[in-house]
C-alpha cells in the first residue's frame, strides 16, 4: 500500500533516546544541539524509540535523519552512518533494543508497507554505558561535536545535491 500523502519539503531530524539511561540520552542531546543550528525548514524531534511512533513521524517526510545511541563493541564515541533507504540496519549494531518494536523494525515495516521516506539516514553513536543515570560518559560527550557536525553536513550536502531552495541549516 503506497503512501499517498504528499511529502513535506525540508528535512526531519529525529533524536532517539532515554534521558534516564546515561549514554542512551545521546540521540536526544544531539537533537537539541542540532535544533539550535537549523532553520525553520528543518524539523527536529525527540522520540523515545517506540517503532510505530517513528513510522508516524517520518510517514510524510521526504528527507529524514535519525540519531541513536548503539552498543556494538566499537570504541565508545564512534560515530557511524547508515543509509536505511538502501539497506536494513545491521543487527550487529542495532541489536538488543529496549523496545520490542523499535527503530530497525520500524524501518523494515515501513519498507514492507512502502512508506519509507525517500531518504532515511541513521547515525549511530557508540555508547559506553546504559546504566541508570542522568549523565553522558565523557567519551560520548566528546563525540557530540563530531556527531552534530556530521548531521549538519549531511543536511547541507543533500540540500545542495538536490538543488533545494529551502535552506535547512542556518548560515
Amino acid at each position, binding site marked *: *500500500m503506497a503512501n499517498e500523502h504528499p511529502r513535506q519539503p525540508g528535512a526531519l531530524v529525529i533524536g532517539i533516546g*532515554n*534521558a*534516564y*539511561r546515561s549514554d*542512551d540520552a545521546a540521540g536526544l542531546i544531539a537533537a537539541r544541539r542540532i535544533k539550535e543550528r537549523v532553520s525553520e525548514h528543518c524539523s527536529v524531534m*525527540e*522520540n*523515545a*524509540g*517506540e*517503532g*510505530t*511512533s517513528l*513510522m*508516524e513521524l517520518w510517514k510524510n517526510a521526504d528527507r529524514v535523519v535519525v540519531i541513536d545511541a548503539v*552498543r556494538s563493541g566499537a570504541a565508545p564515541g564512534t560515530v557511524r552512518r547508515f543509509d536505511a533507504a538502501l539497506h536494513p540496519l545491521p543487527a550487529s549494531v542495532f541489536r*538488543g*533494543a*529496549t*523496545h*520490542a*518494536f523499535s527503530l530497525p*523494525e520500524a524501518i*523494515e*515495516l515501513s519498507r*514492507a*508497507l512502502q512508506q519509507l521516506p525517500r531518504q532515511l539516514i541513521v547515525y549511530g553513536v557508540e*555508547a559506553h554505558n*546504559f*546504566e*541508570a*543515570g542522568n549523565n553522558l560518559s565523557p567519551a560520548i560527550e566528546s563525540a557530540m561535536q563530531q556527531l552534530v557536525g556530521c548531521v549538519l553536513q549531511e543536511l547541507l550536502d543533500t540540500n545542495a545535491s538536490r538543488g533545494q531552495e529551502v535552506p535547512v541549516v542556518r548560515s
Partner: protein
Amino acid sequence: MSKQPARTIKVDILARVEGEGALYVKLKGDQVQDVKLKIYEPPRFFEALLRGRNFAEAPDITARICGICPVAYQMSAVHAMEDACGVKVEGQLRALRRLLYCGEWIESHTLHVYLLHAPDFLGYQDAIQMAKDHPGVVQRGLQLKKTGNEIVTLLGGREIHPINVRVGGFYKLPLRSEFAALAERLKWARDAALETVRFVAKLPFPDFERDYIFVALRHPNEYPFNDGRLVSNRGLDIPIGDYDANFSEEHVQHSNALHSVLKQQGAYFVGPLARYGLNFDRLSPLAQEAAREAGLAPVCRNPFQSIIVRSVEIVYACDEALRIIEQYERPEKPAINIHPRAATGYGCTEAPRGILYHRYRVDEEGTILEAKIVPPTSQNQKTIEQDLGQFVPKFLSLPEEELRWQCEQAVRNYDPCISCATHFLRLEIDRV
C-alpha cells in the same frame, strides 16, 4: 532401567518482548527439571530518585519508567498522592482520567495484538513478514494504535511522555469541541476493534488451561481502571491500602526482578485475563457480545487466548472513550486543591498489563520520604515460569525448533514488559 537423556532448551533473547529477557528450560526425558525466566535488574533507580523530591513531581518522574505505559505510572502515582493528602478526584476530572487510560490501553493492546503476538499464531517470524502478506491487516492495527495515541496526545500533551497530568487533576482541559474529530476516529476504531476480535478469534490456539489465581481491581459499576478494591477468584477482597499485608515480594536468585506472591497462596496472575475473569459483568454490552461471538466464556483460563481478551478490552476502551466524550462537560477548574500532609498514600490502577501498585510516604511539606513501586510484569513472573513448567511436557513430541518457538510464544502471552519489571530500561544482555 535406562538413563533419561537431559535436554536443555535455551532461548538467549526473547524476541518481541518489551525490554529483554532470556529463557532457560532444563528437561530430563519428559520431566521439566528447571525453568528460569531471566531478568536483569539494575539498582532501584527510580524509587531512589523519588526520595527527597516533592510529591507533585511523582507523576512526571514515574512516567519515565515505562515508555509503553507512562499513563499507568502517572495514574498510580497521582492516586497514591491524593490518598496521602486525603482527597479524591471525582466528576469530569475522574472521567477524563478514565479516558486517558482508554487511550493507553488501546495503544498498548493494539501494539501487542498486531505487531508482537499475531505473527506467532500465523507462523510468521515477525510483523514485518506478516505485513508482506497481509498489509491491510497491519495497516488496520497501525491506525487503531494511532487512535489510542490521539487520545493520549489530546489529553496528555504532545511530548514524549504525557505532561498534562498532575496530582489533583490536569494542567489544561480540552474544550468539548476539541473532541469532535477524535470521536469520529473512535467510531472507526471501535469497528476496527470488533474486526480485530473476529480476526483473532479464528487463530489456532493450543489446548492449554491452568486454574490461575486471578487478581484485579473490582468496582461497583465500572470495568476497572483507577478505582476499586483488590479481588481474586479465591476470596480476596481488600482495599488497596491492605496490599502489603496480603502480598509479598521474594528475591529470586537467577532473576533480578522480585517475584510477587499472595501470602499463603503463592503465584498469582494479573492483567487482561484476570480483569476479564473477575469483571466480565462490568464490560459494555458490545464488548460482552464480541467476547461471546469469539467463543469466550465469562472466564478464560487459556493464556494463549489472551490475544482475544486483549482485543475485547480494545473494544471496551473504544466504547468507554466514546461514552466519556459524549457526556463531557468542561469543568471550571482543571484540578482540585491539594495540601500535603504527613502520611502514607496508596495507589493501585490497572495498567494494560495488570495492576500497578505505588506506595509513598510523604512528610508535612510533601517531600517524598519513601517510594515503593510494584509493576504488573514482576507480579506475573512466577506464573510465567510455572506455565512453562506445565506447558513444555505437553508438547515434547514437537520438533525442537517448534517447541522452542512455543516456549517463546508462551511468554509472549503475558505481554511482559520486562523494562517495567526491572524498573528501568536496559540494553545489555549476557549471551551464555
